[in-house]
């Protein structure tokens, strides 16, 4: 009964999504306030019904309703409760429902916080979001219904993929999807602006906070995914350039470019058509990511169970949305750009370079992701473009990007006096070059060109991000003379600097060593002694495991005991590695059990990972920067003021 309610709720949500699309869009065109007024109500209704459907599926999981095919395939009686809930989005059908749920959630948020927008504009935005909902609801109902029954019901389920039975992965998809789906708001704003043909600086101001929120969630989602891959896959790497990782990374790169280009459009009214194009691209790449993951077109460890009809459906939808948007763009954009100039040494120039480099970086990732497909179609060979290619190609745009970043932050809009600019940046530059040599040499005892460049770039960003906040702190005690928006920028850039430092140090000084080990023996890696004290059998709720106890010491001094496990999940029979990690801000010590080599002897992978935590810490701080930026007063104050003016005007004309 409950699953049928869920299915029915989805159908009702679809009908409401159709109302939410058609009536406001037509109403806005005709200037019919009654029709436009439907937008908010329909969006709220759609959200409620999708929430009911989502609740029904969650209920089916929690109550072990194995008469639902999706539940039977992805859950199991002894699965811990947390994972029964996270199993809802553990595979294609449910994660699609999550996507729909979040899209409806974003729409309601837009409806709720759009009171400051002109009525026709708000109606168009909500209408466009409704159109996206229609596409995904149809996708779910026609090809991927999560409520399909299994008759007769299964006695027990097939269990959730053990890789996904992890707290990190329980929260990774929702965060990632909030980000992915969030770019639909910037997209809808762009389409609405193009339909009305009216794009001014206020448009950029309205779009900015929404884009930043989406971006910050995407940042968190990607970071959490990377952290999960690090400790769960057992390889000790933190980024694999896997097709699905790239699918989330491309919208992030373009989203980052969009945030910066929106700043120019808001402050100076420039780059309008470019900003529109980025808003369209960011969401299009989210859709492309969905397509890549769900069509099976690219082989990946993350790929969902695949089905060609799903691939064609999502590709057709992608074509309609993206081509439609771009036709509109080709028609409207030519009339938008203004001729306001800026001098070569100005913030505009740096933000332009930032955008160019980020787009180049995205192109690198896109080419690397799709080229195996090109090769396969041309020659029939399956190749994979591995991390070596990406690592090199990606650095080409990234190195200039981080160097320019520090300069751009301290450059004024319109035009900057070169003398004072050089004086200000002289000191951070000297510190950066000095520490760039000193950090690798003194702390880690080795230097190379790339290493010095990486460390110097990291220090350069950190120092130049700190100048402004520190100055404003020193000048007036207590009251900060810096806007939240500028502070957010500094904090996000600081996070970027820490990330660069972590990534540089860990890739240069990380040690990985595969060895055989048995109880009583010890091995030495990077100056640390890893002694296997013993092996034992451990029983989990739905797995059994062999656990090694490993004692780490440094020059005879005890450091930590870690307990890596090799798990065997009972239903899916797949062995899983649970690495033992001694985590620290300065370094991680990591042991993963490989294969049993003989009686009591195991192959182990021991790793020493200096500063690896800076990678995720950096990402966290970037997201925090986004959070600070959207708390800037002007977004709220002006919205309210605007609302007053609008009502005033409406009364005046009435």
């Amino acid at each position, binding site marked *: 009964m409950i699953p049928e309610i869920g299915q029915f709720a989805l159908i009702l949500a679809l009908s409401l999504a159709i109302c939410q699309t058609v009536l406001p869009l037509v109403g806005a065109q005709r200037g019919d306030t009654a029709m436009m007024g439907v937008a908010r109500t329909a969006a709220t209704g759609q959200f409620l019904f999708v929430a009911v459907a989502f609740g029904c599926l969650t209920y089916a999981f929690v109550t072990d309703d194995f008469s639902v095919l999706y539940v039977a395939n992805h859950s199991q009686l002894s699965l811990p409760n947390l994972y029964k809930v996270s199993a809802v989005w553990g595979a294609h059908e449910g994660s699609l429902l999550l996507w729909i749920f979040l899209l409806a959630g974003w729409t309601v948020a837009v409806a709720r916080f759009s009171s400051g927008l002109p009525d026709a504009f708000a109606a168009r935005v909500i209408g466009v979001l409704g159109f996206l909902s229609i596409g995904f609801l149809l996708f779910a109902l026609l090809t991927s219904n999560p409520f399909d029954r*299994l008759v007769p019901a299964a006695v027990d389920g097939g269990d959730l993929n053990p890789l996904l039975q992890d707290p990190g992965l329980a929260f990774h998809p929702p965060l990632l999807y909030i980000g992915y789906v969030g770019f639909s708001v910037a997209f809808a704003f762009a389409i609405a602006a193009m339909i009305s043909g009216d794009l001014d600086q206020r448009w950029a101001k309205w779009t900015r906070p929404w884009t930043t929120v989406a971006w910050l969630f995407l940042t968190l989602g990607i970071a959490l995914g990377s952290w999960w891959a690090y400790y769960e896959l057992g390889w000790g790497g933190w980024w694999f350039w896997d097709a699905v990782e790239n699918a989330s990374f491309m919208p992030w790169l373009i989203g980052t470019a969009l945030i910066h280009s929106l700043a120019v459009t808001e402050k100076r009214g420039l780059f309008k058509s470019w900003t529109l194009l980025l808003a369209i*691209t960011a969401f299009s790449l989210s859709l492309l990511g969905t397509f890549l993951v769900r069509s099976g077109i690219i082989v990946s460890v993350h790929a969902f169970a695949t089905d060609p009809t799903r691939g064609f459906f999502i590709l057709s939808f992608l074509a309609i949305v993206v081509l439609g948007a*771009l036709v509109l763009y*080709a028609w409207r954009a030519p009339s938008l750009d203004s001729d306001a100039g800026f001098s070569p040494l100005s913030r505009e120039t740096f933000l332009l370079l930032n955008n160019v480099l980020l787009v180049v970086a995205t192109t690198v990732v896109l080419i690397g992701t799709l080229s195996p497909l090109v090769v396969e179609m041309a020659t029939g060979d399956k190749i994979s473009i591995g991390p070596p290619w990406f690592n090199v190609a990606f650095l080409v745009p990234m190195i200039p990007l981080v160097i320019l970043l520090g300069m751009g932050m301290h450059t004024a809009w319109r035009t900057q006096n070169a003398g004072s600019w050089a004086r200000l940046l002289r000191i951070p530059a000297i510190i950066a070059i000095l520490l760039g040599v000193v950090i690798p040499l003194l702390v880690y005892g080795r230097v190379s060109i790339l290493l010095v460049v990486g460390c110097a770039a990291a220090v350069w960003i950190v120092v130049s991000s700190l100048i402004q906040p520190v100055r404003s702190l020193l000048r007036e005690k207590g009251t900060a003379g810096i806007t939240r928006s500028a502070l957010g920028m500094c904090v996000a850039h600081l996070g970027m600097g820490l990330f660069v430092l972590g990534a540089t140090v860990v890739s240069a000084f990380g040690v990985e060593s595969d060895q055989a080990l048995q109880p009583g023996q010890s091995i030495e890696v990077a100056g640390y002694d890893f002694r296997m004290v013993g092996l034992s059998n451990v029983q989990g709720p739905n797995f059994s495991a062999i656990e090694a106890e490993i004692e780490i010491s440094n020059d005879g001094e005890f450091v930590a005991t870690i307990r890596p496990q090799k798990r065997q999940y009972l239903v899916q*029979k797949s062995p899983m590695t649970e690495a033992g990690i001694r985590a620290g801000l300065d370094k991680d010590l990591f042991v993963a059990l490989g294969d049993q080599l003989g009686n009591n002897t195991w192959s182990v992978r021991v790793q020493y990972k200096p500063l690896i935590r800076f990678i995720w810490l950096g990402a966290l701080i970037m997201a925090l920067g986004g959070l600070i930026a959207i708390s800037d007063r002007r977004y709220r104050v002006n919205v309210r003021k605007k609302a007053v003016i609008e009502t005033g005007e409406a009364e005046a004309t009435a």
Partner: protein
Amino acid sequence: MNRFVWPLIAVAGLLVFLVMGLRHGDPRALPSPFIGEPAPVFELPTLMNPEVNIGTNTFAGDYALVNVWATWCVMCRAEHPFLLELAARKAIPIYGINWRDSRLEAMRWLDELGDPYLASAYDEDGRVGIDWGVYGAPETFLVDPEGTVIYKHLGPLDPVIWQREFVARMSGGGQAK
């Protein structure tokens, strides 16, 4: 032509490419149902006797059901009685692929529950399962006399699915009762 048309052209090109990529579908790369394709060739020892091999040729010439099963699979236990029933009324030759299992446990299982299979292949490491695009047990393939996979069912079989999806697909339904 104005420069604002270029993104449109670029994306249209990309889409054409993706459609081609999707069409290109290679069963080894795409773990999708490869219905209408010849059954993937394999050669495996039988479960009961490691000396005897069973392979794709074994079930040529007649419609055959290829059922992927394992003792650790709870839903296989659920569908087992129906397979026995099909075997008892000689509806169709049934072959098993015992998948990622232990030989002893599998033999004991057939001993206890009855053996509906003319023969079971023993796919210990799941290699053949990969070729066949097996996603999880139980999975049942319908292979026609020419050796083409004409249907694949995920999850346990039951009389309704059997009638609707399998019998309907076999020409001259006379063979299937």
